[in-house]
């Protein structure tokens, strides 16, 4: 084999990936050829240089935090998507259910019940209109209760989100 043929094998020789038959030929050649021996030596030098070169490449200090933050964000996005889909499915289900009930024989009963409900509401409204200023007090009390319930709900939601973020 000539130098040119041997040199094509030096890379795999240096990596220990050369076939047994070719290994003997390469060994025999480099024992007598200075140029090819030098190429093998240079290849080893290059390996060392590479190791040192990449030792000086430093991963940014905040990398781990940035990556985890992104993963958490993706996890939250997926959760929001899942909840949205579930909500939409629920809306569709309820709509289909209502329409189904209305067109079925049970619909007549439901319509009757609704009429009773509206009559009760109307009666309630009529009663409050006769209450004068007491009516305003009822509205204010109702608003306070509603605000309290909303605040409680928002705080629970925020706590749930925080738990998710610091998981």
């Amino acid at each position, binding site marked *: 084999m000539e130098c040119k043929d041997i*040199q*094509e094998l*030096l*890379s*795999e020789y240096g*990596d220990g*990936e050369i076939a047994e038959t070719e290994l003997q030929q390469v060994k025999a050649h480099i024992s007598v050829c200075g140029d090819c021996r*030098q*190429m093998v*030596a*240079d*290849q080893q*030098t*290059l*390996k060392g*240089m*590479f*190791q*040192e*070169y*990449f*030792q*000086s*490449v*430093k*991963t*940014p200090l905040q*990398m*781990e935090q*940035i*990556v*985890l933050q*992104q*993963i*958490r964000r*993706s*996890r939250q996005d997926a959760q929001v998507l899942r909840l949205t889909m579930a909500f939409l499915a629920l809306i569709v289900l309820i709509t289909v259910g209502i329409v189904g009930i209305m067109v079925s024989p049970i619909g007549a009963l439901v319509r009757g019940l609704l009429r009773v409900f509206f009559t009760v509401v109307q009666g309630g409204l009529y009663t409050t209109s006769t209450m004068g200023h007491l009516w305003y007090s009822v509205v204010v009390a109702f608003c306070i209760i509603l605000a309290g319930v909303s605040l409680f709900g928002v705080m629970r939601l925020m706590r749930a989100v925080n738990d998710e973020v610091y*998981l």
Partner: protein
Amino acid sequence: MREEDIKVIRAARQGKLDALSVLVRNYQDFVYKTAYGVLQNKSDAEDVTQETFLKVYQSLKDLRDEQTFPTWLARITVRKSLDVIERKRRQPVVELKEEQCDDTWNMFGIEARLDLDRAFRQLDQDQRTILVLRELHGFDYDQLAHVLDIPIGTVRSRLHHARVKLRRLLLNERGETLNGM
């Protein structure tokens, strides 16, 4: 692969964030250095590191054999890095400055690093990729063929040509021999 790493991978596959956190900590150097080696740009390497781990989080459940995690991870990293190169090729942007040095030099001489940096940049992306995977991570030829999705014969010839070109470029920079660099 260590038994400890395998346990962490299994836990991360079940969606446990603390296990995923350990995985990121253990493999962030592996991913970042691979991406940096291919892209030669810190900012792009950071982006690829993020994208790679996001992909790991999303696809870890598909990994059947935990032992193959390093090659699987290398494959994702290389693909993401090549995507960046492809994206840049389609939408070329003006680089503000060429990144040549890091602040940390260890014992490696500045001139030697600059020479290697310059020479390394002149290799094409495939040659840079295969050299990083072989010289930095020590993947064998079968693993390289798997990661890069090329025949083993191509692994042999690509490594040979990459080394010959790198040696030639460095000899042009440094003179007769590489020893003493």
